[in-house]
């Protein structure tokens, strides 16, 4: 009966697992007259089989899609390094499985795509005929699928995990249900930190594909030569180093949604390949002779002006038009009227609650600083600011001193003279794509121009001390070589 499990995974010979299953799996499973790996691949629940040292022997296709690891990549690696289940790291449930009454744990995992996914993990020992533990089996359920129908999570000003009540966001929310129900490709645009990933995820989980995988692929994170293999998969021997078949993100996302972030970074040759998929729904793995039909909805996102890039000839116009059929633009946070306050309250509650902190809100001065700030990093930056403040705050009200220093250094000193209508305020218009350093540099330059090169006056206009201005000028390369910062023009 040792040869009963001689089978393939569909893509490659079972190889090591075949051997390990016959050697390590309990007798009852060895005797099953089925192709167990193929059967497990059809289960829409993540499944992993571990040896007694908690090293991975096998993961099924659902867990491949969820974790982002292919079967070959994770064979022989510690479960905690692959699954990255929160409970594995703090207190591995398999370490004391015999004493445990409950074999179900709720927690989260971090995927290869850097997503934190809430999961429910069920685990059990694999025991041989003599009652000895020879390994473990785990099932991993993605709880995001349950959330889509959870009425408790419905927020009056939200869609999925995106929150906003500004007219700009309400307009987007109005269209989302219809977009979710369609199967057309979607293009999401918006600056960094505006929530493009969340929007894509919200569309998927509101769509009829919600029970199937939501797979994320980031073009910018990989060198060009690896993108094709990661996205479309490759066959063994397709290129030097391709020692095994790789399924690719399209196969992982079968019947679900593939979110391609930073689509503007997709190399031209692959733009054509993606366009072919959108037209023919067929995938050609790298080095393969056989294609396969994929049923995957594509949602793409970019922080670039794709239309302009396409017009300049650096992005295929046909692909742009195909993706742009349904497009959504997420506005920068500074342009979302009234959302800053809503998001501040939301993130304060969400960060304070796990720490059991009873925070009541923000002080008026603190709110003024936070509402006046331009957030070049958008919602992501606001979230970090609030998380920091919640951690630092020791009272019930978040004050100005609880904010990160880069806000208080600049805004306590800079906004005050502005608010007090100082005779010559210094402003710097924030353009798209400018980070805080660029804004600050521009402010210093403006102040020096207004002060006709006199640093004392420029420092006064900025509301800084002379030494602060000098330090920042030196930092931004605005000080002349050999300038000691003590001489003042005209003084």
């Amino acid at each position: 009966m040792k040869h009963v499990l001689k089978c393939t995974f569909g893509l490659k010979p079972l190889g090591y697992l075949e051997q390990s299953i016959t050697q390590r799996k309990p007798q009852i499973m060895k005797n099953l007259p089925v192709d167990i790996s193929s059967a497990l691949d059809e289960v829409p629940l993540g499944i992993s089989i571990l040896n007694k040292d908690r090293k991975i022997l096998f993961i099924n296709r659902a867990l491949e899609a969820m974790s982002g690891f292919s079967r070959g990549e994770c064979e022989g690696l510690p479960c905690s390094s692959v699954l990255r289940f929160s409970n594995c790291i703090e207190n591995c449930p398999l370490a004391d499985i015999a004493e445990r009454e409950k074999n179900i744990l709720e927690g989260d995992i971090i995927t290869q795509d850097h997503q934190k996914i809430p999961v429910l993990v069920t685990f059990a020992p694999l025991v041989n005929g003599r009652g000895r533990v020879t390994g473990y089996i785990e099932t991993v359920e993605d709880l995001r699928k349950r959330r889509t129908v959870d009425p408790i999570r419905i927020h009056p000003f939200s869609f999925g995990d995106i929150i906003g009540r500004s007219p700009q966001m309400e307009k987007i929310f109005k269209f989302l249900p219809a977009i979710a129900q369609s199967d057309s490709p979607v293009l999401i645009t918006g600056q960094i930190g505006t929530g493009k990933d969340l929007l894509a995820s919200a569309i998927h989980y509101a769509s009829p594909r919600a029970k199937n995988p939501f797979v994320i692929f980031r073009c910018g994170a990989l060198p060009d030569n690896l993108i094709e293999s990661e996205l479309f998969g490759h066959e063994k021997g397709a290129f030097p180093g391709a020692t095994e078949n790789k399924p690719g993100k399209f196969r992982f996302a079968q019947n679900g949604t593939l979110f391609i972030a930073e689509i503007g970074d997709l190399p031209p040759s692959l733009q054509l390949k993606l366009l072919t998929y959108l037209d023919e729904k067929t995938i050609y793995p790298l080095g393969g002779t056989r294609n396969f039909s994929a049923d995957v909805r594509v949602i793409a996102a970019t922080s670039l002006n794709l239309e302009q890039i396409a017009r300049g000839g650096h992005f295929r116009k046909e692909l742009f038009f195909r993706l742009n059929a349904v497009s959504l633009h997420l506005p920068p946070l500074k342009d979302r009227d009234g959302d800053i306050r809503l998001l501040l309250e939301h993130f304060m509650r969400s960060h304070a609650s796990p720490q059991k902190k009873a925070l009541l809100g923000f002080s008026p001065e603190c709110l003024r600083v936070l509402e006046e700030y331009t957030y070049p990093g958008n919602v992501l930056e606001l979230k970090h600011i609030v998380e920091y403040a919640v951690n630092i705050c020791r009272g019930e009200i978040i004050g100005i001193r609880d904010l990160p220093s880069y806000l208080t250094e600049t805004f306590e000193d800079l906004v005050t003279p502005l608010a007090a209508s100082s005779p010559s305020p210094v402003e710097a218009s924030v353009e798209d794509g400018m980070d805080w350093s660029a804004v600050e540099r521009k402010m210093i330059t403006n102040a020096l121009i207004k002060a006709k090169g006199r640093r004392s006056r420029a420092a006064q206009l900025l509301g800084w001390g002379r030494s602060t201005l000098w330090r920042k000028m030196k930092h931004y390369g605005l000080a002349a070589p050999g300038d000691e910062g003590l001489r003042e023009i005209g003084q």
Partner: protein
Amino acid sequence: MKKVLLALYGNDIAPRFDLAPEVQIVTFDREGGEEVKTIVLPRPSAETLCQIATAENIEAVICGGIEEEYLQYLRWKKIEVIHSIIGAADAALPRFRLGSLKPGDILVERRK
């Protein structure tokens, strides 16, 4: 001088950035020497690690799995993030020094 932060769990790179109970900050000088500082966190927190990385002027972070928002935040702060590393800190550091450590590197012998 180059400063690198390693998110640790025991002697290994912590499988998750947000659950690393301690960090090691290694400063390499031009003469080839290195200074090592270990910080044990009161409780694991990705936010605290980001604050440490920015406050200490870290140039690179070596870690295991990291959530997108922290990855973007660190990159936004011009900090290189070499993520998804599986293996011991002792194996990662020499590779980092040689410039050959890249995201996703597996530095353990696979035990099949």
